[in-house]
């Protein structure tokens, strides 16, 4: 069954859609702010500094050099190997997610440059079924690392995912192994892998590829961890500290190398990629 029939979303480009609304209300400070200014400001409220959610498109645009974007994803879309049906059939969920995001899957994979340094970069889209990792995301991540090997350049992965995609069952679960296997090859090739953790990086994604970066950078405001608060509270009824699974918690507990504010993330990547650049032998 081909879920994604008409290919309308198939090649991603970064052209902006026309903006319908001029203003938006910040949930944090309550102010009405100019949508255009918010956009130009990395989706940070110009009034109070609150981070608004970034789509994968917006994220990638905020990180790479202008005009350097080239979609290098494989032409694949999700299958429904389990014939999964909860309150909706899985194919319907997929279609809705595609319509909502304008993307074929929960990850954009591109060749691009950051501060003139060529990279292959994957960016997850949280609005696509919670950025969950199924067979397509797993395959695109692996393909991205293979592209990096082909091009002798670093691989950057920006995670935003609740974990494995339940609707693909064991296939989703085993993407943890699949991405790790290709990550080991990237290491053998001595090419750098920079993992960027944003809100949220949890579950099977955090417990596999995202935690295996040579360098791991978390965005301020990220949520990082394996089990969700709810699961922990239900299983063991434990008091959790206020900073639980924040980027500060992750830094304190040695899970990541660095924290960067959203507006610093591009220069942060430029710095570390610059250091490795000669190293890509």
């Amino acid at each position, binding site marked *: 069954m081909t879920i994604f029939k008409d290919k309308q979303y198939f090649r991603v480009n970064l052209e902006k859609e026309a903006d319908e609304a001029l203003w938006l209300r910040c949930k944090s400070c309550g102010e009405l702010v100019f949508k255009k200014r918010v956009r130009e400001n990395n989706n940070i409220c110009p009034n109070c500094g609150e981070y608004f959610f970034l789509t994968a498109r917006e994220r990638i645009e905020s990180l790479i050099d202008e005009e350097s974007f080239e979609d290098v994803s494989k032409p694949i879309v999700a299958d429904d190997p389990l014939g999964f049906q909860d309150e909706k059939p899985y194919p319907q969920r997929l279609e809705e997610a595609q319509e909502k995001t304008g993307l074929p899957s929960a990850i954009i994979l591109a060749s691009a440059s950051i501060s003139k340094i060529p990279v292959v970069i994957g960016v997850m889209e949280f609005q696509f079924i919670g950025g969950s990792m199924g067979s397509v995301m797993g395959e695109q991540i692996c393909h991205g690392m293979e592209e990096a090997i082909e091009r002798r350049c670093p691989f950057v992965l920006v995670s935003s995912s609740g974990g494995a995609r339940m609707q693909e069952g064991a296939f989703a679960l085993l993407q943890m192994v699949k991405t790790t296997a290709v990550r080991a090859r990237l290491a053998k090739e001595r090419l750098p892998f920079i993992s960027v953790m944003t809100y949220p990086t949890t579950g*099977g994604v955090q417990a*596999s590829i995202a935690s295996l970066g040579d360098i791991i950078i978390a965005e301020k405001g990220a949520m990082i961890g394996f089990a969700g608060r709810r699961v922990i509270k239900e299983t063991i009824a434990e008091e959790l500290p206020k900073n639980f699974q924040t980027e500060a918690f992750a830094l304190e507990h040695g899970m990541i190398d660095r924290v960067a504010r959203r507006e610093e993330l591009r220069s942060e990547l430029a710095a570390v990629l610059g250091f490795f650049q000669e190293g890509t032998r």
Partner: protein
Amino acid sequence: MSDERTLDLLEAKIQELRELNKADGLELSAEISKLERKLAQLRTELYANLGDWERVRIARNPKRPYSLDYIGEVFSGFYELHGDRLGGDDRALITGLAELDGRRVVIIAQQKGRDPAENKERYFGMVRPQGYHKAVRIMRLAERFGFPIISLIDTPGAYPGLESEEKNIGGAIASSILSMLEIEVPTIAVIIGEGGSGGAVAIGAADRLLMLENAIFSVISPEGAAAILWKSKERVKEAAVALKLTAPDLLNLGVIDEVIPEPLGGAHKDVSQVMAAFKESLVRNLADLGEKSVQELLTQRYERYRKIGRYNTLSD
């Protein structure tokens, strides 16, 4: 259709009749035989049509053999090794040296408790970071001396709790998967009961992935899926069906290599039978892997996991 409990009650009654018969010479043998035949028939009906949720219950049945039961019955000379060298020794994940049919192996196994005290010690088989760190250490030991690794999986999942998160349980699972993939010795993983999510995969990324007939392997527990996807904890049966978490399903999907048969009603109904089947499968698979060079082993392992997944390709 009768459920398992009713049949267990019937069996108990028959046993009582049998004893009465023996003691008092009542000559009930013919009647007893009839009852026994009836029971066998009902059981066959029940188990042949085991629903997925019933399998989940069998997989979690506390009478089911646990890792240490297999280790004691199927392997010889188990010599347990303790400690992650980093500060902990997780009793939910045990490791050690042993022999299987004369061949030396290293065992990495998840172990549940048999009673409340042991469950407290073993965290109900839920592994903490210390356990995966120990596993990685033992994998490196196995590699140094060329001993194949047998991993036995039986966990509801990695331990969800503050301590786990503080010690980077996600990173520990990731490292354990990576080590399983890198290690230059044959590896066989057997899911003997519950194969719960990332906590199971951490030691499951093996050259061969086997499952007992009534074991389960799932990305999330049916309870968790019901709560999230159906917004109702009651709908576990639907979730169990939808997740395709049984051994026959996973064999069909090509995710596992082999189903190790269990007696009707589950491994605990005839432990020696399941032990024999378990051993036969392990010995055979080990012999098969033993014939491969390290390079073949690593290449085939890589290819196995590189291609896992199902998606549709569009022509551009």
